[in-house]
């Protein structure tokens, strides 16, 4: 690891100033320290946000939602009784991610800002436009098993690795951001991420000096069924090949609404409301679910080594929807809102 200066500001104003001046923020550090050891990230100044006051709480909001402080750990969030009852898709997604040790350190804000696990981003001997702009993309024509098939560009096919953010997209979460002026703005979690386009190194819609302070969830969809389905190369402690977060509300025998987000296949935590429109107002069936999957994958762009992800995503979506609509008769899963 290269040497760096380390500071631990006591308030957000000082932290924000350091970030404006080019410092790199650290919270749980489970991703950043790894990247620093490999010299993929070589910050000269690391600013420790972990002792900032007021960012570690989980509170209810006046409209029945939840505000999750940016420093709340993934394990505390997954274990929170309200999250388990009202937002089970989030609890399941968190528990599907990483290991017990990592979840204890990883924070809500840090999880959102974690970097891709594309193997070529990690291999400093290989070209990577995200790590080294204009050097090329080794994943195309390479081993793209962990790479995305939606939202990619000729410059970059890296996938966003988070499980948590996928559930948050399905739940219509907002990211609360402290601006350098001290004012607060909010952004839908999907808009936090930029698609790679012709500049894969620019990943977030954040200005220098801005700090994520919280994630805000709206009130849970009353009576909706929530499920998180993850497919990966081993049973635990592995990133998703494909994952599906589903929040589905039935009206008798028809689907009233479906909120769906996807991991492992998107350049960012993926959501496509056209898929949801296919389902709304219809009676659940495998044919309908297959039609929705075809809409999801209409613009999929695959490499030889990740072409399997299109049919895998289709089957995973069908399976998740069979559970979430009640078609499978599966009883082993969690309802939101204890309805």
């Amino acid at each position, binding site marked *: *690891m*290269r*040497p*760096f*200066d*380390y500071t*631990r500001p006591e308030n957000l104003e000082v932290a924000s100033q350091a970030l404006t001046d080019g410092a790199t923020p*650290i919270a749980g*550090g*489970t991703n950043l*320290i*790894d990247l*620093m*050891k490999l010299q993929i990230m070589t910050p000269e100044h*690391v600013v*420790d946000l*972990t002792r900032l006051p007021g960012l570690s709480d989980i509170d209810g909001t006046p409209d029945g939602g939840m505000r999750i402080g940016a420093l709340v750990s993934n*394990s505390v969030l*997954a*274990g929170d009784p309200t999250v*388990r*009852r009202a937002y*089970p898709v989030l*609890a*399941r997604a968190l*528990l*599907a991610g*990483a*290991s*017990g*040790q*990592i979840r*204890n*350190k990883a924070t809500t804000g840090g999880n959102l800002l974690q970097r891709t696990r594309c193997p070529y981003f990690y291999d400093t001997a290989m070209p990577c436009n995200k790590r080294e702009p204009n050097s090329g993309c080794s994943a195309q024509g390479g081993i793209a098993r962990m790479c995305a098939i939606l939202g990619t560009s000729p410059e970059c096919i890296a996938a966003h690795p988070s499980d948590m953010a996928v559930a948050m997209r399905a739940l219509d979460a907002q990211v609360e951001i402290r601006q350098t002026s001290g004012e607060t703005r909010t952004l839908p979690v999907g808009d936090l991420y930029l698609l790679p386009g012709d500049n894969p190194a620019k990943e977030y819609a954040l200005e220098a000096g801005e700090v994520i302070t919280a994630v805000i969830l709206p009130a849970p969809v009353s009576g909706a069924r929530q499920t998180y389905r993850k497919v990966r190369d081993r*049973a*635990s*402690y592995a990133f998703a090949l494909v994952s599906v977060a589903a929040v589905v509300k039935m009206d008798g025998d028809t689907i009233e609404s479906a909120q769906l987000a996807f991991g492992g296949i998107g350049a960012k935590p993926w959501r496509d409301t056209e898929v949801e429109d296919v389902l709304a107002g219809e009676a659940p069936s495998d044919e309908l679910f297959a039609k929705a999957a075809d809409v999801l994958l209409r613009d999929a762009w695959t490499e030889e080594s990740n072409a399997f992800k299109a049919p895998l995503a289709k089957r995973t979506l069908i399976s998740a929807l069979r559970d979430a609509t009640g078609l499978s008769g599966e009883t*082993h899963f*969690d309802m939101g809102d204890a309805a």
Partner: protein
Amino acid sequence: MDVTLSVNGETHKLDIEPRVTLLDALRDRLGLTGSKKGCDHGQCGACTVLVNGRRVNSCLSLAVMHEDDEITTIEGIGMPDDLARLQQDFVECDGYQCGYCTPGQIVSATAAIEEAKLGWPSYVSPSLADMGELTDEEIAERMSGNLCRCSAYPGIRQAIARAAEAEDKA
């Protein structure tokens, strides 16, 4: 820079570079070599220690970030002349072969049993409301951050199940 670390109940004042991991500080500066460096990337769990009672990978943490934290290493859990219950169970259940991953396994399992007592569910828990029994499948899932290249997993799971059951009765 100066940092004060509280490890196994003892306070240590150190002058270290910010880039020193907690694992390297424990092993190289404090001589606590029970915590092992396996992968040094958070994938194997051999470096697991407790920070304020919660298990973490000490290789993925900077020592300077742990001022005022209570750190517990395997040396603080039990020594050869005074084994913790879980250590005795690892011996009796053949929960290791070469032993390199064992300190991390035991520290991790110590915290995993506590997490289960708090009612924290896991990915394989049928219900999020009530995690139920600490089954073999639950133990395997909760310990997935600790690898054993000798593959002593059956003995490891058995030892953890015994210790958890003993705590339940206590």
